[in-house]
């Protein structure tokens, strides 16, 4: 890598959040929150409110989602939601995510 003064450049930055030891909340915040977070623009939250009701709109507030169901939807997608590949969201991270959502 070419040498450039550190005042203007940061070289060889760390990999982006690829750690295998992410917590379930960290996985949710990285991969899920943009569609399933709170707020009036989150696609998944809006659609779940329309189709399942307001009380089932936020995944983090639900207690009726089995881990195996969450894992299937993440890996296969559902309607508008595409699947997540195992290189980007690993099986270990998926386990952490489901633990977080089903705790």
């Amino acid at each position, binding site marked *: 890598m070419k040498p450039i003064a550190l005042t203007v450049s940061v070289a060889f930055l760390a990999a982006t959040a690829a750690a295998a030891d992410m917590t379930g909340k960290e996985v949710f915040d990285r991969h899920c929150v943009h569609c399933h977070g709170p707020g009036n623009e989150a696609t998944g939250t*809006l659609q779940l409110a329309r189709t399942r009701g307001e009380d089932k709109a936020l995944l983090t507030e639900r207690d009726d989602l089995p881990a195996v169901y969450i894992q299937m939807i993440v890996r296969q997608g559902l*309607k508008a939601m595409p699947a997540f590949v195992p290189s*980007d969201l690993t099986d270990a991270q998926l386990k952490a995510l489901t633990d977080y959502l089903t705790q």
Partner: protein
Amino acid sequence: MAEPLPPGVSADRMAETLERFGQIVGKEWVFTGEQTASYHDPYPISNDDARYRAHAAVAPASVEQVQEIVKAANASGVPLWPVSRGKNFAYGGAAPVLSGSIVLDMSRMNRILEVNEKFGYALVEPGVSYFDLYNYLQANGLKLWLDVPDPGWGSVMGNALDHGVGYTPYGDHFMMQCGMEVVLANGDVVRTGMGAMPGNNTWQLFKYGFGPYVDGLFSQSNFGIVTKMGIWLMPEPAGYRPYMITFEREDDIAEVIEILRPLRLNNVIQNAATIRSLVLDAAISSTRSQYYSRTGPIPDSVARKIMADQDIGMWNFCGALYGPPPIIDALWTVIRDAFAKVPGAKFYFPEDRKRRPDILIHRAETMRGVPKLTEFNFLNWAGGGGHIGFSPVSPTTGTDALKQYRMVSGRVREYGFDYMGLLAIGFRELHHVTVIVYDKTNTDERRRLDECFNLLVKEAAAEGYGEYRTHIQYMDAIAGTYKWNDNALLKMHQTIKDALDPKGILAPGKSGIWPKHLRDGRQA
């Protein structure tokens, strides 16, 4: 169903190849069987489930691993389908054109290698998403803005390589690309432009280097695997003012485009602005069933009701101004006065918009490079989740815009879909992107969509309009429309393909370019 094998590859040879891939990257990064489900096209159109299916996927973590994978694929003849992050969702996602291909999933190569604030650029690997780069700039307080497409989870590199566009003055992403590192089909690594010169320090500053400029050969192509790419970033401006101008009638688009062309050519309109249709914008915050319960396209009376409810127009022009406030004030005066000539035009700033969610509030973020996924709301317009983009290019003239609109909206509505289109404004051309939202679980709707799409391609070509980008299912059809002088361009692509990738292991069928052994029976 069992995952398919590519033509001419036995099950044994495939198994040996996957074994070798496992030795290169580690077995846990080779995905087979049920694990390939997440690599399927999430929004399929074909009703033949055997089409566009990967056999497996392999995810390398380094350039050296990519080189070894390519060498192994060359030895076995197993085709690879490289994807950066595989999130090119309206165009096939991570799925290959040729069934049985192995997806070369570059998601793990996700390092931001350099960000240079002084010169305004980043050097990234394929797996870096817009969210990743944005978060990095924010965390480090760097005064640089991204340019983002609508979905922020895609690859910075992948979007540029597929000629994606965004919404700031840096909206033409491939124009803002500078310098590449590419693994060729024989495993050699090439750096383009100034990167070819040892010790040079302008790889991300000057595109052309010396001799032929080759970076374009690696966009929308299957001539190599890009492993590093420079992307220019916009210095944070001294001021920012997003705005929206709405227009009431469908035919206003002709006058609007005539007004817009000189403003864009002269950089009075500074950004890659968009003019968006009623239903596309309404779908950001509402669903079809809230307004209309019958099948078929919504009638005009319903369109008027949506306009009134959401305070939007039949067309909505979202733009933004950037720079010192006095310059913004002067530019806005010119823009406002120009569009005030259109009867019924209304002018808005974000503070004028009270409804939530709101299209200008949303656009105000994307036009300053904030990555989001809000745009995915439109997938729920009709409830079935599927979408595809039909994206012909035309000159920036009112005549062409109106003609395009009538051609495409007429056909789309004839086939029972609502027209959801936008005109992305380049300096001299329009990308007319029509999103067709469909029920991906409905086989009849998929069949109708396929028939409609093929007709759109054919009719556009007959009028001289070509698509700039497409779904994997239509790559042959669209490549076939670029056929001047007995398919001379496609023949040249094939000549390059045969020279750089004689065994045809890289992305067979990408952009209609097939290797020699799979070319029989296809055009040219």
